[in-house]
């Protein structure tokens, strides 16, 4: 027993140095050299200021922006508090929330069916993407608010649509922050 205790203590110490100090420093060093942008969080600078990360979603409530999905992270897209809603599918709070979202979205675009991801929260609350259908759904409103043609917006959305990776992994998606950044650049709000 005593031998096991001694070995356990020394083994924990030795492996903590190897796996808890050397290994992570090696990984950090190699990653910072090989993939600096990714290793540092894919942050986006705009005019000298940090506007966010392309991987971390943001709320877009101002006029003329494509909106993100609803979020349960803090008050919405609080990156220091990642969270989903964890509401059961039969939970009345979920059904009421979705019904209210549907009503307000229907008001802004009465003709198209509402894509379900636009009224549901993501698992992280920080989802940076929306489905291509959700982006297209918002085009009529953006066209009105920025006084631009819908076809120009359709081109914009198409350019920002990432297809399935390697052709079959995951889902097609549109990064909302990158989309809105280009929107501001090409068609600024007057």
């Amino acid at each position, binding site marked *: 027993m005593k031998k*096991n*205790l001694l*070995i*356990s*203590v020394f*083994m*924990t110490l030795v492996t*903590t140095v190897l*796996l*808890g100090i050397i*290994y*992570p420093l090696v*990984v*950090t060093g190699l990653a910072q050299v*090989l*993939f600096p942008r*990714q*290793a*540092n*969080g*894919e942050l986006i600078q705009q005019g000298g*200021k*940090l506007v*966010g*990360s392309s*991987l971390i979603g*943001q*709320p877009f*409530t*101002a006029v003329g922006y494509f909106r993100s999905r609803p979020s349960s992270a803090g008050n919405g*897209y*609080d990156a*220091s508090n*990642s*969270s*989903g*809603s*964890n*509401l*059961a*599918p*039969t939970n009345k709070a979920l059904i009421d929330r*979705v019904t209210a979202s549907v009503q307000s979205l229907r008001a802004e675009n009465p003709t198209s*069916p*509402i894509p379900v*991801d636009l009224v549901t*929260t993501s*698992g992280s609350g*920080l*989802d940076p*993407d929306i*489905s291509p*259908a*959700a982006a297209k759904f918002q085009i009529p409103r953006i066209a009105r608010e920025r006084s631009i043609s819908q076809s120009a917006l359709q081109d914009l959305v198409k350019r920002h649509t990432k297809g399935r990776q390697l052709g079959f*992994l*995951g*889902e097609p998606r549109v990064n909302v922050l990158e989309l*809105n*950044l280009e929107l*501001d650049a090409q068609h600024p709000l007057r």
Partner: protein
Amino acid sequence: MSASNLLQYAVFVAVAASLVKPLGGYMARVFGGEKTFLDPLLRPLEHLVYRLTGVDPELEMDWAQYSVAFIVFGLIGALALYGILRLQQFLPFFYARYQTTPLSPDLAMNTAISFATTTTWQAYSGETTMSYTSQIVGLTVQNFLAGASGLAVGVAFIRGLAREQTSKLGNFWVDMVRSVLWILLPLSLLGSLLLVWQGVPVNWHYYVQATTLDGGQQVIPQGPVAALEIIKNLGTNGGGFFNVNGAHPYENPTPLSNFIEMLAIVLLPAAFTNTFGRMIGKPRQGWLLFSVMVVLFVGGLLLCGWTEQKGNVKLAHIKTLSVHSLQGQPGGNMEGKEARFGIGASVLAAVVTSNGATGSTNSAHDSYTPLGGAVPLVNMLLGEIVFGGLGTGLYSIIMLALVGLILAGMMIGRMPEYLGKKIGPLETKFITLYALASPLAILPVTALAIATKHGLAGLVTNTGPHGFTEIFYAYTSCFANNGQSFAGLNASTPFYNFTTAVVMMIGRFGLAIPALALAGRLAGQIKRQETQNAVPTDKPLFAALLVATALIVGALSFLPALTLGPILEHLIGR
């Protein structure tokens, strides 16, 4: 589900299957002490470790000595982690402004036991609780050590079946160190860089402050995520860097990072079936176990995928809302799922993690449909036999196979045999002890929780049958050393911290010790030629027996509880 989703599943199984033989052979050589290509680099390091720690690599242990070493190492690891967590605020990289949740004694104790048993149940949110030092020097180290310890026990179990007329099952320290140096460390170095390439950060920066396009402030946590991320999955642990684990875009940024991370979970346990086959000199036995795993795996994928794609029936009634897989949207039940994963890649993670004793989900299981959420629950209740935990998955499926052989033996009135070893009365006792552990641990504690106000206080998000499922899921997950949860349950209370810790330890040691005892007993037997009494264990009939045993024994133990939870919720929800 779309054709792409199904192709994703097929490619996943194909890639895993293609790696079974090369990786399985490599592991067999590592544990057999044979030559490998990494020897010039690692042998000197291995011997240095033995010199520094006092390990005598020539010493062989019997099942009791092996068990004691395993237990003591696990407890010392838990104690060391407890110390790091409780002293977190005095160690580097502690950010008082953001890490505002205190690591109370009960939370630190729960986390320490959790990570030392590969459960990695997290009654805390990473970004508001853990410093980078705790995550890396504490948690990541345990990810390696606890995973390696499990793999060592698995190897010892195989030796019990492979050897004859000996009491020796190997040396726990040698097996554990070899697991770390030859298997986990090289794969982690490679895997972490692949993940960074896909967007997982690895830095030691302070949380950054951004001004959003809307004009608001957004604090974005950073950290050495990739270093933890790969071994979290490779060692079948599962505890995420951030609160939402694999749903967080920094932990799992792309569908490809998801594919790599899920592959990392099943890779070694799948290959280990081949290691088993080689070490007993009968590769077909290993392939049979692997095939059973694939069948149960794919079954879960299809059932969960189908019901999640159908979507939430309650939402489908809302006019103008489209839950269908239209042009340009994944459709289905998207509450709690990420846009980049949709239904297909979320369900892949749900089924891989629930089967792989790893908690790193990428969607909110609490928001799954009743039947959809029942699939990961049932996967865990089956006993983590479908790939399962590193090392532990193999003896889990074999123990279940032995239960099946005992039942078959009782039906034909003959003493069961497995691989030339007789399963006599004493062996049957160990197997029975093993099989009774899960219902005896999970069900009474679940009952205790729902019967007391402390337990019910956890139901802050959902109530009724779904709330029952949240509690049942928690204890099932902890027993299975899985660690995933229906996250709507508030489990960061002393009641849950204490009860889940107890269940985790029963799930880890209450299964490993009977398995090792059985292995020790079998190692002492002579290997006989298969007699006419034996059920041939490399034929499809045995595979069917195994699947039937898993489902029937699982159903007998847990169908009543399942009826109170997901089945009831499904019936009243229509």
